[in-house]
């Protein structure tokens, strides 16, 4: 399969290591076991000095001769095999294609190797952390789920993309934005505005907000995908642009902000290259409805899940700063959440014409 002339890449070697685990264990008559770092809150710590999340050292053993894990172990080896195949052919693919590639019926049975994609996705993340290889290095990409517009010129596959001349739609952020694939040719913006929802991004783009305030508009349509986060980080790092985050005023909005700022719990191992510890939370704050005169009837009552989530956030070590505790507690005491869309209650262009200008002017943001 592999050509003898090509030297295996570092990632490929790591993937082959999975097979070596099985072979050497079998020789020593030991149970083949992979040590996989635990990806949960209990194994994540907040590095205050660096300002991002770090993964702890706890690992979980996944062994083959264990009824509960045998299938997962088998699937992990199978996924490693598929990923190695990508390396050798130098192709990139999606999570879903990996799932289809590895799915087949086990010989002499009715059983499928995988039943749903939900089974293969976490395995890829497992391999990422175990092998300390990034998803991009594994040649797995996510959907292009973000848009960017602003005074910025990028080079993608040799094509120049001027993000100031892409109309309302902007440029669709690819999932892999490492310098090898995407270069920042020129950037004259003053800051980056990362918006949670596509609706508000469209509003701002349509109103040419970026031209007036000389900024880059970025959205991830909800929880921003890796590409968007990584690109924001690069703009922040390479061009020294401050990043402002505009999200709904609810626990999930707060968490999106914290993911941009400190990294996510699930992918804590990547936060050192994704997190933007200096990102600012520009809105919607729980103080805004009062400050901007949003009527109570455009709020939504917090449901039990919202409240439980907010309480969880209060306990996260990276939300311990006093203003943040106040912010979350204020939302809980009001008992309402507000969507960005609610600003349209005052005026369709309220966001562009009043809200953001005033915020920027008053430097009214949280850190």
């Amino acid at each position: 399969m592999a050509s003898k002339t090509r030297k295996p890449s570092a990632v490929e070697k790591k993937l082959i290591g999975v097979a070596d685990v099985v072979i050497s264990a079998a020789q020593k008559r030991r149970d083949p076991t992979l040590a996989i770092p635990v990806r949960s809150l209990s194994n994540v710590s907040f590095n205050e000095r660096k300002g991002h999340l770090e993964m702890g050292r706890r690992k979980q053993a996944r062994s083959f001769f264990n009824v509960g894990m045998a299938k997962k172990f088998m699937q992990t080896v199978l996924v490693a095999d598929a990923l190695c195949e990508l390396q050798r052919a130098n192709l990139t693919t999606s999570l879903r294609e990996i799932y289809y590639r590895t799915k087949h019926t086990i010989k002499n049975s009715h059983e499928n190797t995988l039943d749903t994609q939900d089974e293969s996705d976490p395995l890829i993340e497992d391999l990422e952390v175990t092998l300390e290889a990034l998803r991009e290095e594994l040649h797995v990409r996510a959907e292009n789920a973000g848009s960017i517009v602003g005074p910025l010129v990028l080079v993608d596959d040799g094509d120049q993309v001027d993000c100031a001349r892409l109309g309302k739609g902007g440029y669709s952020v690819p999932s892999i934005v490492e310098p090898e694939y995407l270069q920042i040719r020129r950037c004259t913006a003053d800051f980056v505005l990362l918006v949670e929802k596509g609706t508000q991004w469209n509003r701002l783009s349509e109103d040419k907000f970026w031209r007036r305030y000389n900024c880059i508009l970025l959205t991830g349509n909800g929880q921003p995908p890796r590409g968007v986060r990584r690109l924001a980080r690069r703009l922040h790092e390479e061009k020294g642009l401050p990043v402002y985050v505009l999200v709904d005023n609810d626990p999930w909005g707060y968490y999106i902000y914290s993911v941009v700022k400190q990294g996510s719990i699930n992918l804590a191992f990547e936060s050192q290259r994704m997190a933007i510890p200096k990102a600012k939370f520009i809105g919607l704050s729980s103080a805004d409805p009062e400050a901007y005169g949003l009527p109570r009837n455009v709020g939504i009552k917090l449901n039990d899940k919202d409240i439980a989530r907010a309480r969880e956030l209060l306990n996260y070590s990276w939300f311990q700063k006093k203003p943040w505790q106040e912010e979350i507690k204020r939302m809980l005491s009001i008992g309402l959440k507000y969507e960005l869309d609610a600003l349209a209650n005052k005026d369709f262009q309220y966001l562009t014409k009043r809200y953001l200008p005033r915020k920027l002017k008053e430097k009214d943001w949280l850190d």
Partner: protein
Amino acid sequence: MRPPGQTLNSSKTDPPAPPAKPTVSAVEMGARQREISVSEFFTKNRHLLGFDNPRKALLTCVKEAVDNALDACEEAGILPDVVVRLETVGNGEPAPPASQASRFRITVADNGPGIVRQQIPPIFAKLLYGSKFHRLRMSRGQQGIGISAAGMYGQLTTGKPVQIISRTSGRTPAHYFEVQIDTKKNEPLILEKKQIEWEHARGTQVTLEVEGRYQKGRASVDEYIEQTVIANPHVRLTYHAPDGETKELARTYTELPPSPKEIKPHPYGIELGMLLKMLQDTRSHSVSGFLSGDFSRVSPRLADEMCKAAGLSPRARPRDVHGETAEALYKAIQATKIMAPPTNCLSPIGEKAILSGLYQQIKGEFYTAVSRPPAVYRGNPFVIEAGLAYGKAPEPEGALPEKKAVPLAEGEQESGDHELARVIRYANRVPLLYQQAACSSYKAVLDTTWRNYGVTQSRGAAPAGPMVIFVHMASVWVPFTSESKEAIADYDEIRKEITLALRECGRRLGAFIRRRERAHSEHRRRNIFELYIEEVVESCNRLKGGTLPVAKLKEQLHRMASLRTGGAKTDEALGKNGSGPEGLPHSIIVTVDGVEGEVPEPVEAEAVEGNSTNGASAGDDKPARGKRGKRTRGKGAAPRRAGKPVRKRAAGKRRTR
């Protein structure tokens, strides 16, 4: 109501019309009042007897005739041989197909003792005439309404009389009758009577023509027949369905249930009015003699004690006891501790017979049956029996082409059916097909926590799974909720007994399921590794660029797999090299060992057969036995009959799995 300001008096004296002569005088009203005969009453209220709709009516007619036939045979000590024939009647035109027909001729013939000539007309054409109402003895029929009501229904819907042929022995001639019921007087009308030639030496045959509807499925005649055979494995039943199909349901249990004895009423079971009536009717000359003579479980000493407690002389004449003294006596009786009524008036089916019936009629993997010791409600003794058939019989090897292993797509699942358990209910061996939800036995099934026994059950529902639950109540007087005998009334004592019986069944089922599951999981453990080793090795080989000594790695892993799962020991437990679930025994029957002495002795089938029935029946039975032997796979048939050996066999199978 009243206009304000008006007093009660003024409204009374201010009627809208002057007090006219009453339109109907008391004399005229009196002239209209007359007796209502039972037959008239039930003509109008036929739903009370189970004739609400044509489908149910057809079933009720068959049921009444079959019940009578079985009762008669058993009382005479004859192993019943019953033929049921349903035919469509065209009424002048050619007979329509069974599913569309609205008229049926029902013929039920038995090999019973026959009926003496004089009794034939009242039995078949007089309501509330019968031998069973006045005695306390277990029988299917109770009131003496059934068959005559069926005849009346036929008469009402088709105008045809009931035809009866009966013969009491080979030496006497057979009598043929056509009778109708005079509904006004509740008396039989004889339309035709003659002596005829009949091919049978003994027995009764009744033919009814009724309006009905034949439809298979739940609460159908077919279901009734099937369930009757389960609870009466000593019956040989031939059923000619109206669509031309004939079912031969062989006798699988050759012992006639012990004939129940007639008992006297138990003092706890009577009311004051009943006591007064009995005091008047008795032949005894003293109260003491009356108490000890006319009731069960009252010894002369106990009778004296009761009299003393009631402040009554034991020598007092029963006819002189009225009013307060009678009431005092009644109270004294109720306050005295009396032994429970004798239970020889009952004839429970018995665990072995239930097992045999369930095994024969229902395919499953596990059967069990429980007979409770007798209990008493309102002075009536009763016995509860419960049984259970669980699982699906594995398909015989080679019968079906091996199912192709089709890979499942996402979201697809193996089609596992989630049917609910079927509850089959009986009272005195008669299947109850309607009003399941109102029945005490069904309620007891719902109340039992089947989850404790490894069966899934949603709240307020019957347990789920391939399971048939059998509940039987045998009593001298089964408390039905209505005359049509569809549901057992919910007495606490009855409910408790049913629940206890079901729990015992459940416990045994739970043990069976657990044992089976343990074997399965060991097997699965091994299988998982064996399945996955292949995949893992292939993947590793590809990762290594195809340079791996595949066979060696596989072997190493296999060796570890068998080491990890208990090696040879597991191999043995799994029935050699894990040949799969086919290695499981087809059925396991557990009976409680050492059941009370009432259980009939295991008898050789052929021997009893020959003695008790006429020659034809014994001969006919042979092929049936052969058939059964095939189903039991090997030596299954023999140990099935005994309590202890079955246990052992089950245990043996378990070990080899």
